[in-house]
């Protein structure tokens, strides 16, 4: 069982500002899902290598060439806040 503190910790790590109601509901649902995935405990994997990926490609190298990239205007076209030159964010450093 996940405690309310555990669920809040995960939400903080996930950068999700959840209401108390959401925390409680998601906590219950996570408990249910974690209860279900415990079925994996019955599998012996002691000799098994993890498989993160199915593709047999490893490092895909290409030449380091200068190529055109998106123009600034297009790069900023979806920004929630911009001055036309930069992405604007709230002040991060105090007394900066």
């Amino acid at each position, binding site marked *: 069982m996940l405690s309310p503190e555990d669920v809040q910790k995960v939400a903080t790590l996930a950068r999700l500002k959840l209401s108390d109601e959401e925390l409680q509901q998601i906590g219950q649902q996570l408990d249910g899902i974690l209860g279900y995935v415990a079925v994996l405990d019955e599998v012996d994997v002691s000799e098994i290598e993890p498989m993160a990926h199915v593709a047999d490609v490893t490092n895909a190298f290409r030449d380091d060439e200068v190529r055109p990239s998106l123009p600034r205007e297009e790069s900023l076209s979806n*920004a929630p806040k911009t001055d036309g030159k930069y992405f604007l964010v709230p002040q991060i450093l105090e007394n900066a």
Partner: protein
Amino acid sequence: MDITGSTTGQLLNAMQNGDVSAVEVTQTYLDEITAHGETVGAFLTVDSEGALAQAAEVDRKRSSGESLGKLAGLPVAVKDNICTKGLATTCASRMLENFVPPYDAHVTTQLQNADAVIIGKANLDEFAMGSSTENSALKVTRNPWNIAHTPGGSSGGSAAAVAARLAPLGIGSDTGGSIRQPASFCGVVGMKPTYGRVSRYGLVAFASSLDQIGPFATDVTGAALLLETLAGHDNRDSTSVDRPVPNYSATVDQPLEGLRVGVVSEFFGDGIDSDVDSSVRAAIDVYRSLGAEVSEVSLPHTKYAVATYYLIACSEASSNLARYDGVHYGRRADQFDNMIDMYAASRAEGFGAEVKRRIMLGVFALSEGYSDQYYLKALKVRRLIRNDFDAAFENVDVLAGPTCPTPAFRIGELVDDPLQMYLSDICTISANLVGIPGMSVPAGFSSNGLPIGLQLLAGPFEEEKLLRAARMFERETDWHTQRPTFS
């Protein structure tokens, strides 16, 4: 000519012969969307103006004798998690409601090079997370065969559009069954290619080791034609594989001599609907009647596939969706205290319940003290599932079973029970974990008139064999020619 009743092959022939223009074809589908679009709710964006301009360009090229691509003049419904430059790409999320991509996905460019007509962007479960399209934050999509039922998901809009003949072709993405399951629910052909066969560049990432783009069509030949357009190497996706693309549509009509079909016992387990069971067994009898060698095959780790999948998919999703920070694109909250709070508030506003749930599960499964027990364990079981398939394909050419244990469920039926919804993916999920191609082909109807799909799976990069095997079945049956009446 009955345009919407035609196959892609018939439409291409008619346009080539001058019986009908590309503009007439596109206009006919646009009229169908106007007539039935809101009943089905398949599209988030219909690009009438752009589609008619693309179609006019096809007609112009044809009349001036210029060469034309393989899909010249065929309308395509594109899932709205695939970037289209200048055309909104929302992922059916409040997070990306106003996002207009400054670039095209690789497959979008492939469609344009083939002279296809992008008619609109199709609805989906938010960020492709779901099995019913009910997780769309923007629209409800209904199953054209019975509008009280879901079209499946997550590519429910693309599947419903093709089933309702609002477009002859569709494109979806499949992370755990998101092409095959809605194809099954909507009575159309849908295919997930081998991992790496189609570039994922410009597909909004959900679970990067599982996601793959693939075709929807009303028949196997249409799917073959669309796949050969989408497939191929692209150095902007480092997992896209540099192998020649076979001419699938040229060989699809050739039956396979001595085909060996393995019937997956575990796919007929507890909870399978009796109509699904009998329809799929009847489909397998069709292969027997064609001289195929049919045997029972066991994939013993199937019972662990759903748990393995949800741990891996959610872990990858939690990492991929970290990019939505309210800075570069997407929603930013109006009210926040500081930078960190801006992230958290923006993400809380932008993401729906299922996306939050999966991010939370993924972050937990990757977190300190738990990652060995959950994420790493899942990666190990994933290898055991892969070993099951490797062993099976030593003895058979294709594996067969139902695409989904049940026909389409009702809208609202499973929406409050995420685990039950996840379990409906039991037959499709392994192909993503293992990276193999799979497809769903119409194989009958339930007693209450809902479509049933036959799923076929083949080894890595065996799409040609898979399509030919599917076509062998299709040419003996007429399930794929049935059309819904939207009621």
